[in-house]
């Protein structure tokens, strides 16, 4: 199966919706086993390994994050946070069926709220997608906050 550019774009829209609707099992199922969710700390950071990131998580950590959200003793989630994306139409930066590599670039605003507080993050997501098992999958996802080096309070859900 060779995804069209629209397939890639639809995939990114659908992924954001899964997160907003809290459909985390479906969301985890989108990932390749080696997939990494990376949110750099430094602006234009290139090294994920030897300097700190905000997130650099494999499937185990992502699963832990998701399961924790529903834990009975997860006090920072009583009451629960909610999140919401408004994403601009993704750019398809790479569409290479032969290499089975697809890359999109998406500007978005992410709002997270809990009780009477809420905050907005302006960010750009880069999705590395591949086709596996006849469907698109996330090989890697990089989320760059416009002000990644600013001071933040809790960011509890996932942009």
């Amino acid at each position, binding site marked *: 199966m060779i995804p069209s550019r629209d397939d890639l774009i639809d995939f990114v829209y659908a992924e954001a919706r899964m997160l907003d609707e809290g459909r985390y099992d479906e969301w985890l199922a989108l990932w390749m086993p080696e997939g990494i969710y990376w*949110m750099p*700390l*430094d602006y234009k950071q290139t*090294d994920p*390994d*030897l*300097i*700190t*990131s*905000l*997130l*650099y998580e*494999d499937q*185990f*950590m992502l*699963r*832990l*994050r998701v*399961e*924790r959200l529903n*834990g009975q*003793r*997860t*006090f*920072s*989630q009583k009451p629960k946070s909610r999140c919401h994306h408004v994403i601009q139409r993704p750019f398809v930066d790479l569409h290479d069926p032969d290499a089975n590599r697809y890359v999109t670039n998406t500007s978005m605003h992410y709002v997270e709220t809990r009780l009477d507080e809420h905050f907005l993050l302006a960010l750009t997501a880069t999705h590395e997608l591949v086709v596996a098992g006849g469907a698109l999958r996330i090989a890697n996802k990089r989320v760059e906050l416009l002000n990644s*080096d*600013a*001071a*933040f*309070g*809790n*960011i*509890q859900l996932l942009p």
Partner: protein
Amino acid sequence: MHSIDTMSALVQPHQVHRDIYISQEVYRLEMQHLYRNAWIFVGHDSQVAKKGDYYTTQIGDQPVIMVRHSDNEVYVLYNRCPHKGTKIAIDRQGNTGKFFRCPYHAWSFKTNGCLLAIPLKKGYEGTGLGETESAKGMKPVGAVKNHRGFVFARLAETGIAFEAFFGDSLSSLDNMVDRSPAGRLEVAGPPLRYMHKCNWKMLVENQTDTCHPMVAHESSAGTAVKIWDEMGNPEPRPMAMQIIAPFMSPYEFFEEMGIRTWPNGHGHTGVHHSIHSDYSAIPGYFDAMVASYGEDRTRAILGENRHNTVYFPNIMIKGPIQQLRNFIPLAADRTLVESWIYRLVDAPDMLLARTAMYNRMINAPTSIVGHDDLEMYERAQEGLAADGLDWVNVQRLRTGPEDFDAEAIENGTTERQMRNQFDAWVKFMAPQPAAAARAAE
């Protein structure tokens, strides 16, 4: 209304008054006295490696610049132009070359603060500018000490000396540095910057609060253990599990860990062992250490597994993983936490990789463990608004009078270190004895 004279009344041996956490007046007094009299962490000299390198930060509520002068020494100057007050530098860091130049009217200053030049200087002839403080240039802070790369400063001109203030507590800092085969650390990247809507002291106390992990972190560490279980506990456990699992250790573990306190509010957990004890060895590191120190000394250095060392008033270091956390007080109910990591010069990268992972997993605004803690602090800041009870209890394992001027080692679940901090708090909120002042000369 609070004043400097009422401060000691806020601290009792077994409890402290809630105003210590929620009163903005107390906060202001802390800035004017405690943060002037005590030695405060400024930064690491590798942040200003080359001459002209500068780093802008603060001591309490005072904006300062840490800069490497042409004599290769590190200076700490108030970030304030003596002409009209403009901040000389705004970037978090940079290199200013041989001198600073104020962006407003171009007065310039040597990197030790001395006035270098004023444009159209003749305009000041016969004005008596020379007799003013302004003519002296950018003012340096009261005293600066660079201890093996870690730069501390005292705002007050006179006061307790660096060695007298820290005493034997420097052993933790030394051990952290000794863990480099080269005996040197280098800062690794920018710090995490995590905003907390709570008082800074809640965070400092939490560093030796050994009765909260198994409760507050059950949601994160407990869930990790559960998932790993479901996966059949495959070995070897990945770094992530090595880091997070120990947070679920039982009370006994923390009791036996032990707590040591030093005079002037310093102390640490993990006298005998710590949550960092069982990190798997990193190939090549031990050999590199032995090459530098010989085997006995190496074993002695690596044998220390101190968990959290609190340097009063507001930093904590983790020697075994080369992390430093700076609890920066912004208001009675606002604290910015910076979490820094350092590279062990000449050690394998893998150690730094583990440290970077620890930092993001435990101390990032996006960290599930961090969420557990922040929730507690912010709940407490709000809860203390309740008139139900005026005091915060700190008496666990306090069975009688305590002498904080003597080093002590106790059961790892004692709140003695919290009491030690408040003892020092009262001491450095008060006017400093001239004796101490003389000693400092």
